[in-house]
């Protein structure tokens, strides 16, 4: 894992108290049937903001942000947003401000430490991705630098310093406030987006993997792989590209998996790729079995008439080929009748520790079960096995 979004509610709950400010937000998850009751307990304000809180960008533009909503209309507003396919919302008191007071501020961890970006005109127009020339940029890695940034942005030194401290202490990787309203003794973070560094979860108490903005994973197999990866020291990834795809990939290594997927795409087969994924970091046979099982099950469900399974990877440094292949063979054996019935062809290319043993195991398995295809060691290059496999389609 790496940089992961947390909800705006969670982000504000972490940041605001550490700036000495109270936070009056309400988190609503409509998967919880009792959500309407929560609204009844809201502290009374004349108006509220209701917004989708699922890490979506440009909420204003896309109508996922509703301003100036009275207490009575909140439920209705949520129902409206819910109808657009969302389930996590944030309710906050509505505070009026002059649009001319809106600023843009972001902090990001960079190679040199922390970098701050500021724009005197806040609002939705500024994309963090294409910062124009009027965006001012500051390094904020010592008191002097923070002083310079504080003066330029007209944020009090203490407030800015406190914000940067939170950023560090909470293992944030990215923080964006847009718009931001600057007061003498406080900051009004109208919209706050935070990405944490997931590797920091061991060092913080305020957030954990449970508060990440979840991609709406609806595919069971992807979910199973995500869970497998969470509880293993090794790494597993699975993304379905086309559930009716013809090319299914059981790949090892973050790098080799990209190379192989790219090659299919280069050869014009992008649209029939079933999945992207990879396992790495010397998983054991059981874990590899669990992973392979998910891909085999996706492949068998695909409506494609011809299917290939590519079991491939580079020349491993320390992942034991025979151990991982044992796990893969177990997953294939389990569904062997269906694999045969669907005429799935298996292609293999792999190198690394115990490669002879691993390749022999899978060659025997493929021959014995007449799964056709081709089994090769490193003598065949990554692109060559891709070429060979395409011939079978």
């Amino acid at each position, binding site marked *: 894992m790496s*940089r992961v979004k947390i909800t705006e509610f969670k982000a504000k709950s972490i940041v605001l108290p550490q700036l000495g400010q109270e936070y009056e937000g309400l988190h609503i998850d409509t998967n919880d049937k009792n959500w309407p009751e929560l609204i009844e307990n809201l502290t009374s304000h004349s108006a509220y903001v209701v917004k989708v809180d699922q890490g979506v960008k440009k909420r204003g533009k896309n109508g996922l942000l509703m301003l100036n909503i009275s207490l009575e209309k909140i439920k209705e507003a949520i129902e409206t947003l819910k109808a657009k396919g969302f389930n996590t919302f944030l309710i906050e008191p509505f505070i009026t401000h002059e649009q001319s007071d809106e600023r843009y501020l972001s902090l990001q961890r960079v190679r040199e430490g922390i970098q701050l970006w500021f724009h005197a005109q806040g609002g939705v127009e500024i994309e963090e991705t294409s910062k124009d020339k009027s965006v001012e940029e500051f390094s904020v890695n010592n008191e002097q630098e923070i002083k310079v940034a504080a003066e330029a942005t007209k944020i009090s030194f203490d407030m800015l310093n406190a914000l940067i401290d939170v950023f560090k202490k909470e293992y944030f990787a990215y923080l964006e406030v847009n718009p931001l309203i600057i007061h003498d003794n406080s900051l009004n973070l109208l919209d706050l987006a935070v990405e944490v*560094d997931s590797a920091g979860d061991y*060092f913080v108490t305020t957030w954990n993997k449970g508060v990440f903005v979840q991609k709406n994973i609806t595919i069971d197999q992807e979910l199973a792989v995500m869970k497998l990866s969470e509880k293993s020291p090794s790494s597993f990834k699975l993304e379905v590209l086309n559930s009716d795809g013809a090319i299914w990939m059981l790949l090892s290594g973050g790098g080799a998996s*990209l*190379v192989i997927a790219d090659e299919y795409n280069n050869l014009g087969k992008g649209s029939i790729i079933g999945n*992207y994924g990879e396992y790495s970091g010397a998983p054991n046979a059981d874990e590899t079995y669990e992973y392979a099982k998910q891909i085999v099950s996706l492949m068998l469900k695909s409506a494609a008439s011809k299917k290939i399974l590519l079991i491939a990877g580079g020349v*491993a*440094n320390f992942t034991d080929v025979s151990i991982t292949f044992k796990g893969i063979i177990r997953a294939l054996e389990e569904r062997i009748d269906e694999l045969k019935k669907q005429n799935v062809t298996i292609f293999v290319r792999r*190198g690394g520790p115990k490669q002879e043993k691993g390749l022999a195991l899978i060659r025997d398995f493929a021959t014995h079960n007449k799964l056709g295809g081709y089994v090769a060691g490193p003598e065949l*290059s990554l692109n060559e096995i891709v070429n060979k496999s395409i011939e079978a389609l």
Partner: protein
Amino acid sequence: MKEQQIDFAQYGKTNTPCVICVGNHPPIIQSILDFDYMIGRKEPSVRAIIAGGRKFERYFFGEREIAIPVYNSGRDLNKTWSCQDLVLFLNVSSGRRVYASTIELLENIPSIDGGVLFAENMPEQHATQLIEYAKEHNIWIIGPASVGLLVPGQLKLGAIAGVDYAQLQSARAATRGNVAVFSASGGMTNELIWNVTKSGHTISFALSFGGDRFPIFSPAQAFLAAENDAETTHIVYYGELGGDDEYEIVRLKNEGKITKPILAFIAGTISELFAEPPQFGHAKAMAKTHGESARAKRAALREAGIASPDSFAEFLTLIDTISMDDKNENEDEGTVPSIGTRKKALFMSSISQEKDGKIEVLGSDLAELGSSTTFAELLISMFLGKKVKSKEVVEFVDTVLKLLIDHGPHVSGAVNTMITARAGKDMVSSLAAGILTIGPRFGGAINEAAHNWFTAVEQGVPPQDFVESFAAKKQYISGIGHKKYRTDNPDPRVATLLTFVEKMESKKYTSFALQVEAITTDKKANLILNLDGAVAAIMLDLLAEKEDVTAEKLKECIDTEFFNALFIFPRSAGFIAHFLDQKRLDEGLFRLPEDEVLFV
């Protein structure tokens, strides 16, 4: 900046570098030792492992089994560390521990030149802190999430080039060539090494930066190192979408700082098939902006005149077409040794071995020792596990052995020996019966006394507080007190022993014991420093001052009951004497008279 100075070509070129491993990773460490063996080194490069648990980890060097010492921490290692050559480290601990353990090591072993971090999932903040640290301290750190650095024929630091001996051979890891291989991905590093080798070329050096967002050792630094290396003629590079490292390479190329031909492949166009940019295998591999995409990077590289093809197939073709004219003329194509058959020994011993029919004790032929050493010298050397050098220690031990050989027939061990002998049992049984009484109340107090003196002195406890802490718990102090001897009737044996410390400089343990005695005898005249206490204190002082035994090693002596050996050994001789005596006198079975047992 370190940038200009790194010259991997020099690493391990003449002398074997000293590698410290943080954490124990058997396949990786073994592969480094195999590499050392393969290139004909006489000794392995891995000198120490920092980990918990055992004191040694066993590995193979060729066919020979070796034990690599294990230390608890860099601080612990620092006490005994010495290396005149290049010092490097390899940290294989987890992403959570890697930052703290690296800093701990670097602070304690300042002679370190650089190292590799193997762990994935190290927080970005820790990486950027290490970038700062490396700059300030003028060291290099490759990683995190790196399979390491390979300088063929000279250095293997990590899993790079594989962990099987066969892999090392096919990667031609013993031969230094002219093609540098760099990659963010560990697997692709090895894949490229394989492809370069397959095309008939050999590697000048190879390294993996790791797939994290902030590789501490940056691609730019690696490219400059390749430019700087006289042997390297070509650079083969594998990069991915995400981050902006390639733009730095473009800059260096445009500024003319890199002139050697580069073949670069940037993977990740598959990302274009996804609606939302996904996170691929490596932490960095996510293109949020156009500039971070594989296509944009390829275009920028090409614009700078760097070969950056659109397919991996073309990339491999380019590797194949690297001119053979640039091949290093001195490439040694000699055969590498076989690692032979390996068998793990059931035991380790550092005391003695049987070699070519001769017995070697502590590395010397026992037959020769028979004429060149005294019994006391050989005995104390074997007890310590190393040859002693001072005559004071030998003389002291000789005296102790004599003084402790017997304490009359009335003490429990002697009584047991005599009773068993009279019951008609053999020598070994009678001796065992006597020895089995040695423990907390009889004879076993020397070690406990050593523990008392050592702990109090090391922790700086004042004698007064020391005595008080025992009094408060109503406990006896081992090493203090005697049934018979008192201040007005001192133990003559103790007086004899104390003459050994008279000429010593610090004698801190004995001084402490005597200060304690001064306090305790003030309370009661028989609470004097007894023989156990004196032997323990003086032995501690002699070992510390005359044999340079460190505090850690003294602690180990206490933990292993070394001090009790000074009693058990001579007294066993005494028991044997009592056994023989009883057999000669032959009084028959002993039975305790009835009035000697009080029925309660």
